[in-house]
């Protein structure tokens, strides 16, 4: 289980994360939602140890360090692969560093998405790059897969395929933390939704609870964010001077 306790992070005096408390048990698919700059990426980068922070983040009670970092993988829209290397070379690099690398899953996903194995990644399309980034994170052999807007720039078919594949291949012990804006697309495939706003967790609910209450994820988000449904019509009225 990943435990985030009282984690805060500031950039030049501006709070990016403000006393975040969160637990991620194994075997969940969790959606992390929030507007741009809400702190989703910062939270993930703190978990992975890319940023210094105050507070505590542990993995099964141990601080995250080089000893247990292989249990976490990361897919980001910034891409963390090497553009000059081929997919095959990436597989070899991962096998060298991550003993639990799942070659069978890698080959299966490469085949499913029809990605070329011997072409440098810089020649891939944006959609293919995104697919490859996610494939690597899924095949590393990690227990916790952190995904930060991995489908930015991908078309809807691309994304749909991925959700389906993801649901099909994940082991019961694998956890996915998926930061995205695409609420409606992922609501049927996540088990829990966490809402983050201005660096604070403002909502944390299981999809089962939502279902039982008869609400949709988007309604929960709007409620939590105190979304004013009439703000567009008000603004238009003010702009056009019409009633």
């Amino acid at each position, binding site marked *: 289980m990943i435990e985030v306790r009282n984690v805060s992070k500031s950039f030049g005096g501006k709070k990016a994360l403000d006393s975040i408390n969160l637990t991620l048990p194994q075997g969940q698919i969790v959606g992390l939602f929030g507007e741009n700059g809400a702190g989703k990426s910062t939270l993930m980068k703190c978990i*992975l*140890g*890319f940023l210094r922070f105050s507070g505590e983040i542990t993995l099964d009670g141990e601080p995250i360090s*080089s*000893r247990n*970092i*292989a249990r*976490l993988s*990361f897919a*980001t829209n*910034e*891409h*963390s*692969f*090497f*553009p*000059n*290397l081929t997919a095959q*070379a990436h597989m070899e*690099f991962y096998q060298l*560093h*991550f003993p639990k690398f799942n070659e069978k899953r890698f080959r299966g996903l490469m085949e499913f998405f029809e990605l070329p194995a011997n072409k440098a990644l*810089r020649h891939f399309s944006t959609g293919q790059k995104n697919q490859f980034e996610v494939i690597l994170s899924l095949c590393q052999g990690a227990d916790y897969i952190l995904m930060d807007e991995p489908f930015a720039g991908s078309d809807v078919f691309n994304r749909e395929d991925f959700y389906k594949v993801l649901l099909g291949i994940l082991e019961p012990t694998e956890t996915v933390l998926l930061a995205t804006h695409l609420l409606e697309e992922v609501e049927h495939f996540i088990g829990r939704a966490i809402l983050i706003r201005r660096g604070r967790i403002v909502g944390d609910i299981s999809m089962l609870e939502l279902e039982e209450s008869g609400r949709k994820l988007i309604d929960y988000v709007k409620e939590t964010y105190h979304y004013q449904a009439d703000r567009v019509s008000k603004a238009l009225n003010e702009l056009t001077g019409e009633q």
Partner: protein
Amino acid sequence: MKTSFEDTLARHVPPGVDGKRELIWLAVGGALCLLYSLSFFIVYLNHYQALFVWDGTARVLNTEAVMPDFIALLGNSLTGFLILALCLPALIFYHYAYHYRDSMSIYLMKRLPDRWELHRRCISLPFCGILACCGAAFILLLVYFGVYMLLTPSACLAPDQWQKIWIAFLGVVK
């Protein structure tokens, strides 16, 4: 088919960087430094010839003549190696910056279980290059010094040549 040397080299540069090409550039740089250092012989031969005078048709040693100090003849002939060695930290910087170019592969390198992997791949080749520059400069210094001591007639040698080298390199002013 990659040789084991190429494999080893590939493991000591950032993934996707052409280590062989970097090594070739380093070798070219080293060769140019070596060629430049040969200017020592031109200077030496000029002074060597000045040790002799013509007596009719015979060339005889002027025992009054004194060969300039080795360190003075050496001059800047090994400076190329110093310049090359000083350029190599820029290669270290380039290797680190490579992980932020066109993607953020730094994220992958930072979450490898081997936390030295990133530094090993960024520093190894330039560091070996610096060592090679220092080593080559030292070996050439010894070779040129040997040539100077063996070829210069002992009657024309100024004393304390070896000490004068140390004084020059340690910056001690007599």
